[in-house]
């Protein structure tokens, strides 16, 4: 089964062939590298940008306004923070012109910890991004979701921020992307660039299909009755695993993969919390002014009298960075044991 990098690559190939995508660009996005995570190997419209994130976002806005369809990459979200003004501008252009100009652009960027990335290859970007109106914000946790959500992002006429949990980039999916050969080796031979000289290499694309997943629709990855766990990205599989484990201990948790952070699937959260009365939000961004706090607030404002326990947030510690040494990273972002403990505690809280 494809991993997330391959899934992104296939979605982008589909998009440049069928959805009008004209420019897939960013630092080292073109060949010979095809992206530091290989997400753009062999793509027809991929090209290397100058090392200038502001230029990259500005270029994408210009291409979009010129009638092209850009998919820009910021190599690591850690390096996107000098472009927030431009992101805000892309997000307010349709509104400020009273509907005159749309800005159909996609920005992809790897996020999160888990690859021993130290301070500047471990940032999360969901808190900052969900505070910027006018964008849709997506964060898949499986290759198939990445494929389907990226397809929807490329069809959007609004700016879309596509956050890719870098620690999941190499994890193979459990579901087949429509069109991919069942055999991983076969897929790799078709679409992974070879080591060494790549000048003559061309990708051989499988016959891919549209498998767009609508933005704004969450996925219940595990049904349960006692506690609702809402997460996305890297922490989602950790939550799912924790729920599985706790099921053996008599705790029945429902796990929801939000997938789209804005607009998010409130109906899914609401229905679940109305059922369980207990909710835990999990993400790895730092915890002050964190998107999970918005979700807590929403739950409190709308479902207060249905709650059996205080809603909880488990997020990254409020620290200036994630340290390189293992014990530092482990102490900074939610670990499997933290999640298990939080779910178990919540399940045990009585009103």
């Amino acid at each position, binding site marked *: 089964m494809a991993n997330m990098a391959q899934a992104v690559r296939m979605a982008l190939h589909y998009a440049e062939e069928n959805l009008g995508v004209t420019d897939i660009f960013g630092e080292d996005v073109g060949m010979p590298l095809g992206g530091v995570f290989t997400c753009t190997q062999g793509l027809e419209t991929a090209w290397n940008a100058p090392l*200038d994130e502001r230029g990259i976002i500005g270029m994408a806005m*210009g291409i*979009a306004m010129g009638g092209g369809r*850009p998919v820009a990459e910021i190599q690591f979200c850690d390096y996107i923070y000098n472009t927030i003004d431009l992101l805000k501008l892309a997000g307010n252009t*349709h509104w400020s012109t*009273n*509907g005159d100009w749309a800005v159909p652009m996609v920005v992809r960027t790897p996020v999160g910890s888990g690859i021993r990335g130290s301070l500047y290859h471990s940032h999360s970007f969901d808190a900052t991004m969900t505070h910027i109106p*006018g964008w849709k914000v997506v964060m898949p946790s499986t290759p198939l979701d990445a494929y389907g959500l990226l397809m929807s992002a490329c069809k959007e*006429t*609004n700016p879309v921020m596509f956050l890719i949990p870098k620690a999941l980039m190499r994890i193979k999916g459990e579901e087949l992307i429509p069109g991919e050969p069942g055999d991983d080796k076969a897929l790799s031979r078709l679409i992974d660039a070879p080591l060494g000289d790549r000048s003559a290499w061309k990708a051989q694309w499988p016959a891919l299909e549209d498998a767009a997943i609508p933005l704004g629709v969450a996925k219940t990855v595990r049904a349960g009755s006692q506690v609702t766990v809402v997460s996305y990205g890297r922490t989602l599989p950790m939550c799912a695993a924790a729920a599985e484990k706790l099921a053996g201990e008599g705790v029945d948790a429902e796990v929801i993969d939000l997938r789209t952070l804005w607009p998010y699937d409130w109906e899914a959260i609401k229905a679940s919390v109305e059922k369980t009365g207990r909710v835990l939000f999990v993400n790895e961004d730092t915890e002050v002014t964190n998107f999970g706090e918005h979700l807590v607030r929403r739950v409190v404002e709308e479902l207060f009298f249905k709650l059996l326990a205080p809603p909880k947030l488990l997020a990254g510690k409020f620290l200036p960075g994630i340290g390189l040494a293992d014990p530092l990273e482990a102490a900074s972002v939610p670990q499997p044991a933290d999640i298990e403990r939080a779910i178990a505690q919540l399940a045990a809280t009585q009103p």
Partner: protein
Amino acid sequence: MAREAKKLNGPGKAGRKPAPVSSFKPLVKQSDGLALDAPLLRQLHDTMVKARVLEERLIAMYKTGHGYFWIGGPGEEAFNVPLGLLIKKGEGPAFDYCHFHYRQLATFLAMGEDSIGALRQMKNTATDPYSGGRNFAGHFSKKAWNIVPVSSPIEVQYTMAPGTALVQKRHGGDGISIVTGGDAGTAEGDFASCLVWSSRPGEELPVLILVTNNQWGISTPYGQVQGAERISDRGVAFGIRSKTIDGNDPISAYLELKEAFEYVRTERKPYLVEARVSRLYGHSSASGANYVTTEEDCITRFEAKLEKAGVLKAGEAKALRERYVEAFAEQARQVKEEPMPDGDSVWNHVFDGEPGRDPFPRS
């Protein structure tokens, strides 16, 4: 250390006085004669006056409480009008894209825009064609003519112009991307980004990079904070054809811009023009918006030249001005009766293609 700071940076220190524009060489064409034919000269003059009178009307609206903020381009007409006349207007990559800043009203008028739009935006009425009463005066937007929305943050437009130009280069034809901004703003990294992205080897882009140097950033003299004697010199390192011109002379500006437009249209490569211009009503309404007498007025200068050459007859200029004054007064009266936008309309156009709605229930 505080004392020494004063020595280095104390108040009032104005830095190097910028050299007068006439000392800049090579200025290929100096228009001592009238190198253009009379109809064009008259058109230039007419539009310059029209733009000036419209700006003055906007200022008057501000001063009489019919608008909260004014910013515009009086003093830059000799550059901005020729610019507008040279733009190939229309929608899509076959036409020119305009990445303007907030002093481009004269250019917009020269392109043929109706004056009433500016009055409506000044009064932030629901009828404001550029933002529906949302944005400041001078913040135009017109997709039908490739007028990319003017936004307040200084210099960001310079990062976007290469984007539209890339689409245009691919598209073929002679459409180009034009970007304008002020002198002070060139200190932002975005100006450098524009130079970098426009001049990638083999991927040079058809961007006409313009800087109107009025020697001011609000209250700060250019020569106090920037060391580049000619802003245009910054293009040289990138192999970008670059020039500093007299933006107070519409004839020279027209000819210089024409050459630059032709180069960018046909060579499909960038060209950088720095135009020295005046700022005749201060920075904006925030600084009072009063006429200054210490800077050259390009219209006065042009009218003297036209009258001397017999292109304008005595009294013609005055009559022209009066006609515009009356016309815009009438439009302003009309606009004052127009409705404000509704509060509920804030939800409109947050997303393209989706009905406006508050994402949250309100109790």
